[in-house]
């Protein structure tokens, strides 16, 4: 037995099979206009589009209104099969490039500050007067979809017991497992979707693994984006007051307030130079980045930044960086700063100290303290 044998042993196609199949297909009636078809017009199983249809189409909403449950403040209709609508639900969004499309959207919304590694925002946006839909894709064709609806009362369609309450930035949110595939709810599909309300809008963030890949993968948990990553992405969507045309602004909080309710366990200095008192700080980027500042009466500040460990690139002039040690850990001190003309000036009395500890990157910075003082502060962070 060899390759050739395996090819030759295939039974021949029965003569006439093609013709009989053609006759069989010709008897297949035209498919009714189901919501499933509309969903697939987006190219992938983005069942969250159903939420748009049922929220904004009165006939569709009326057809299931007596069957809904309340979960996490959302109206959830549990069904195994997509309802068939006789009439067109009037959902025909426009499509455009992101730059052109977002200019035409009639309401304000924010995009995530955090994009999971390997995913790219596709340069296309679907939109109508009530909704916006954007897609992220990775090289494996795993798909993350972000939909924003101009309502806080969406109607969500899911399979039975597929929805549960979680929290996004401390607020109730809906987590849905599974998705509609070919009009039926697929409980095995590792698609997950998060619904949460913010700024009078409903944000819907869903991840759907490449279907062909999932169907043949032995490890069903291997595919797609993890729930933790999806939650991180959702929590990185800022409030509109902190967002303007792609730029993120964060509302400062008092350092004492941040330390009372830290987003993750924070190590702070046990030693501060004389005269320095807690000032303001910022929690940002899906709670994975914190900045705390202390100030003295002269207005001079000492800043501590803590961020999740990543491949951070520090920019400095040619002679501006030196390797040092903080509590035995490798560290780098940066002497100097970039001036407004973009040139590095190492004579500026600015000092930054970077080191890694426990999965985080710590940075302390001062424009006035001596290097020795800065080092003492750093070594008191344990």
């Amino acid at each position: 037995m060899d390759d050739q044998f395996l090819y030759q042993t295939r039974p021949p196609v029965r003569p006439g099979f093609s013709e009989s199949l053609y006759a069989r297909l010709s008897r297949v009636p035209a498919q009714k206009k189901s919501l499933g078809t509309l969903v697939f017009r987006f190219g992938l199983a983005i069942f969250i589009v159903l939420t748009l249809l049922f929220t904004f189409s009165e006939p569709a909403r009326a057809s299931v209104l007596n069957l809904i449950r309340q979960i996490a403040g959302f109206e959830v209709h549990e069904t195994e099969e997509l309802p068939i609508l006789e009439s067109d639900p009037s959902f025909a969004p426009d499509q455009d490039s992101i730059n052109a499309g977002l200019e035409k959207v009639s309401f304000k919304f924010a995009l995530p500050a955090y994009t999971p590694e390997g995913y790219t925002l596709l340069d296309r946006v679907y939109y109508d007067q009530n909704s916006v839909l954007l897609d992220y894709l990775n090289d494996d064709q795993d798909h993350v979809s972000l939909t924003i609806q101009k309502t806080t009362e969406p109607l969500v369609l899911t399979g039975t017991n597929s929805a549960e309450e979680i929290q996004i930035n401390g607020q109730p949110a809906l987590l849905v497992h599974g998705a509609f595939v070919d009009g039926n709810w697929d409980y095995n599909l590792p698609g997950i979707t998060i619904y949460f309300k913010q700024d009078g809008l409903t944000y819907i963030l869903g991840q759907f693994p490449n279907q062909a890949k999932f169907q043949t993968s032995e490890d069903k948990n291997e595919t797609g984006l993890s729930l933790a990553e999806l939650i991180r992405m959702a929590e990185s969507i800022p409030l509109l007051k902190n967002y303007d045309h792609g730029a993120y602004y964060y509302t400062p909080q008092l350092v004492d307030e941040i330390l009372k309710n830290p987003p993750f366990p924070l190590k702070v200095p046990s030693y501060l130079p004389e005269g320095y008192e807690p000032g303001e700080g910022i929690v940002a980027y899906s709670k994975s980045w914190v900045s705390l500042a202390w100030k003295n009466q002269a207005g001079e500040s000492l800043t501590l930044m803590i961020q999740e460990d990543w491949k951070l690139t520090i920019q400095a002039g040619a002679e501006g960086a030196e390797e040092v040690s903080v509590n035995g850990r490798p560290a780098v001190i940066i002497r100097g700063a970039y001036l407004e003309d973009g040139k590095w000036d190492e004579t500026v009395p600015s000092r930054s100290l970077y080191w890694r500890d426990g999965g985080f990157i710590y940075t302390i910075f001062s424009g006035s303290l001596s290097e020795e003082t800065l080092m003492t502060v750093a070594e008191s962070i344990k």
Partner: protein
Amino acid sequence: MKTFSKTSALTMEESINWKDVYDHLLPRVYHFFCYRVGDSFVAEELTALCFEKAWTHRENYQNRLNSFEAWVFGIAQKVAVDHFRRRGREVSLEAVPELACQHVEMDVQQRLDFERLSQLLDGLSERERLLIALKYGAGLNNREIARQTRLTESNIGTILSRVVLKLRQEWEK
């Protein structure tokens, strides 16, 4: 206003020649099912089901993302999975009455070889059998199989070499 329905319909008309599909893709899908389920009667029914799904849901196909062939084999894999889920139920012969007289022209030795090979394929793991079906049934190359299965090309080559060797040893017993 440009709508999705117009776009989809235009894409379908321009991109799929159904005569070519019947002439060239149908035999490969049929052979995929032959090796996947090990029964030529069932394979014919599943092939029909697969094409029925492709035909019914043809508006779902978007040639920007996948080739039509890859799309159909994606459907075929799902049809096979559904078949195994409901295995044990009787296959309806009413849908295709021609089945009763099929394979009269199949060479006796070839039929015996196929039956014996099918028994050996029954002893493979799900993944091994899928790869055999995609490679020697559907005639896909390793790169095309990689797109369908998420395995790497080199991994596919290694697995197939090992499986063919195992089949050969069993065959020669």
